[in-house]
């Protein structure tokens, strides 16, 4: 996969896909999208980068091991579910706050952080599988 075109396009493609995956993640509550599909898009982005530049480059780029991303996501999802316990409502009850940023009301919810958790788990798990498979013994 060392064609010049692919190697030139890959970084831009990866960046765009990751941006798009975040967009898909955030719009998921009202439009088609969500954490799972967003995670898959991001994982494909890393896979493309890996095919173009090798696994080591991807590992350098994401700094931590992809499995720790997945672990962090799972932790975030559990914590999002547990927040409701402190509010005295059952586990996994969605809680909403409406802070005002620059005059715009932004609804934030534990549901959203939960979805971010899903996103991170999917990115982390799929990326680590793909990277491990791409890796050769000599890498």
């Amino acid at each position, binding site marked *: 996969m060392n064609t010049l075109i692919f190697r030139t396009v890959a970084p831009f493609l990866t960046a765009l896909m990751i941006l798009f995956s975040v967009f898909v993640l955030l719009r998921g509550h009202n439009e088609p999208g969500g954490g799972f599909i967003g995670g898959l898009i991001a994982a494909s982005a890393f896979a493309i980068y890996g095919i173009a530049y090798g696994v080591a480059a991807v590992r350098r780029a994401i700094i931590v091991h992809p499995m720790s991303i997945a672990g962090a996501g799972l932790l975030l999802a559990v914590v999002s*579910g547990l927040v409701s316990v402190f509010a005295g409502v059952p586990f996994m009850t*969605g809680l909403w706050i409406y802070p005002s940023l620059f005059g715009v009301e932004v609804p934030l919810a534990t549901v959203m952080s939960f979805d971010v958790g899903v996103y991170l788990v999917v990115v982390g798990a799929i990326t680590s599988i793909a990277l491990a498979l791409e890796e050769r013994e000599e890498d």
Partner: protein
Amino acid sequence: MTLLCLFLPFIAAAFAPLATRHLQHNAAWLLALAPAFSFVYFAGSLPEIAAGEVVTGGYAWVPSLNLSFSWFIDGLSLTFALLITGIGTLIVLYAGGYMKGHPQQGRFFSFILLFMGAMLGLVLSDSFLMLFVYWELTSITSFLLIGFDHQREAARRSALQALVITGGGGLFLLAGLIFLWNITGVTQLSLLVHMGDALRASPFYLATLLLVLGGCFTKSAQFPFHAWLPNAMEAPTPVSAYLHSATMVKAGVYLLMRLNPALGQTAAWEILLPFFGGITLIVGTFLSLRQTDLKLMLAYTTMASLGLLVMLTGFDSEHSVAAAVLYLVAHSLFKGALFMVAGIIDHEAGTRDATKLGGLAKAMPITFAAALLAALSMGGLPLFFGFLAKEEIYYALAAGDLRSILFTLVAIIGNGLMFAIAFAVGLKPFIGKAVKTPKHAHEGPVLLWLGPAVLALLGLTGGILSGVAHRFISTPMATAVKGVPTEVTISTIPHLGIALALSVVTVAFGVVVYLLIDRARALMVRVLDAIGPGPDKAFDAILAGLVRLSVCVTRITQPGRMEVYVTATFIILAATLLVPPILYGELPAMPAMPSDVLMHEWAFFGLALIGILAVLTAKNRLTAIAALGIQGFAVAVIFLLFGAPDLSFTQFMVETLSVVILALVMTRLRLAPSDHRPMGQMLLDGAIAIACGTGFALMLMKSTQNAFNNSLTDFFNAYSKVIAHGANVVNVIIVDFRGTDTLGEIAVVMITGLAILALIRIRAGGPLKPADNDPDRTGGHAR
């Protein structure tokens, strides 16, 4: 306060290694304070219990299931508690001397104290669950103690055998307790003992009884479950003296006694208990005659004594319970003492082979005195506590009918042989010509002889002051066992009568055997050799058979070939999909061809079909994978056209990633680039694939032909925006309405990822070798 006593041994166990590190063997004095404290506390409640009161207490544990952590102290549990803490105190001190200088002495103290806590909990438990937990805990601590010297093969085998037999028996007990709970509806022993009539009338009585007996007989080493007890002598002597004579093995007898008011007084009880008890008594004494090792001789007589106790518990005559109670206490005292004596001889003379010992009296006067006193009690001679027990046994058994005569005969033979063994252990090594022993024999330190001396003296004082002993120990205990007030009055002054006459016969028989013991031993060896292998060998054979069976099952179900797994999975899938609709006539009706299919819809169907055809005709695997992707994309577009954008979106991404990952796996596994299955195999696999596909299509058609239940759809459509503030119903379901499901799913994704990573790593590092557990090759060291 009782709660503190229940947990004190565990607390002491936690500090034992630390204390031993600083104080070496003298830590025994400190650690013995824990059981001594409990002993004093329990002794303080003697007058109260003797007056007929019962101490109860506890905490609700799971109130909804009627489970509690509760204790209850009556005459029976108090006597056991006193034996456990009293003998326990002496054993800790004895272990201080016996294990002196052993590098793992702290651990040993810890195990012994753990056991003590478990045993104490067992006899004080009121609730079934607590009883069972402590019951199994005694099995586990016994395992740890028997296998204490874990570098020896024999110790490991014995420990495992004891755990398998007593732990397996524990499972029987658990089932029995559940039966008891279901029949009576109570979960507390103190309530259960009043439920005897309901239990005896239940159709499940016999099953319950057999299950409970399964637990009790294994724990108390009744024939044919006795093999583990002599093997348990692999443990250091303090363990043998404490667990395998004075306390743990009596747990089964304890439970039988405890349940006597509830389960007793039926034909089954009065046949099974005396029968197995009698056999155990006879087998135990005969086997003990054969032995030359002091500890093994004692171990087999312990088994015999347990048989005698079980026999008496089930015999149900006027004096039988009193006899069992007296004998239980007497046995704990003299057998504990004799075991410790055997340990001292081993420790100071270097051997415990009865044929290589003699004339030790001059070298070890205190040990000799203790041994002789204990042997006199075991022999059942006047003035000693053992005499009371033996008289009461004959009062209980002697009567005119055939059953009584038979069991009296059994008791005479058993007691006579035990008399002989008592003196073979307690007298013979000390008298006669001094024999050269491996070590130069001399008296042990105070830590060693204190225990046996105290126990032996107690056996004497208990006999002389029989009135006091009866008032505080025997009478309350017998009352608890019988369930009705029972007075024990036997005294150590011999009264002329049938019992005394039988005692004289017993002693005479015992003396004869003692004098001819070498000949009797030779005779037993010949007889046993003629009989052949016993339950001990059977245990090995059963275990080996179990291993072979599991190897066979594993070979069949886990052959390690991917093809077999995949084929089996898909055949079962096809069968599940196809067989029920055909059997029950639930096949879908052939749908009418829709007339309004648009051009572009036809195009995507065609694309999916082309993809499939390309997979089938592809020359190599890479092409096939890519072609499968085409089919997947076509399906994704179809989802999109029919109004499922989320699903379609996900399908696109999943297809993309599948193709990438499959291609990567292929290069990684270095598969042959193309498929080389023989024709027959291809036809078979093709048939399975078509069956699966057909089945799935039929199921989908059938489910679309039924009317949909729209209540969920309506609910989600109505409330998604209102309650959960989200317009995308699918996503709201995933992250909010069914968020807990999603949490489980992402956990699965994560774990799957980890598992795949591990698989890839193994592949990269070459095949892993299974751990080498063969003790012969690794020298028995944990690695």
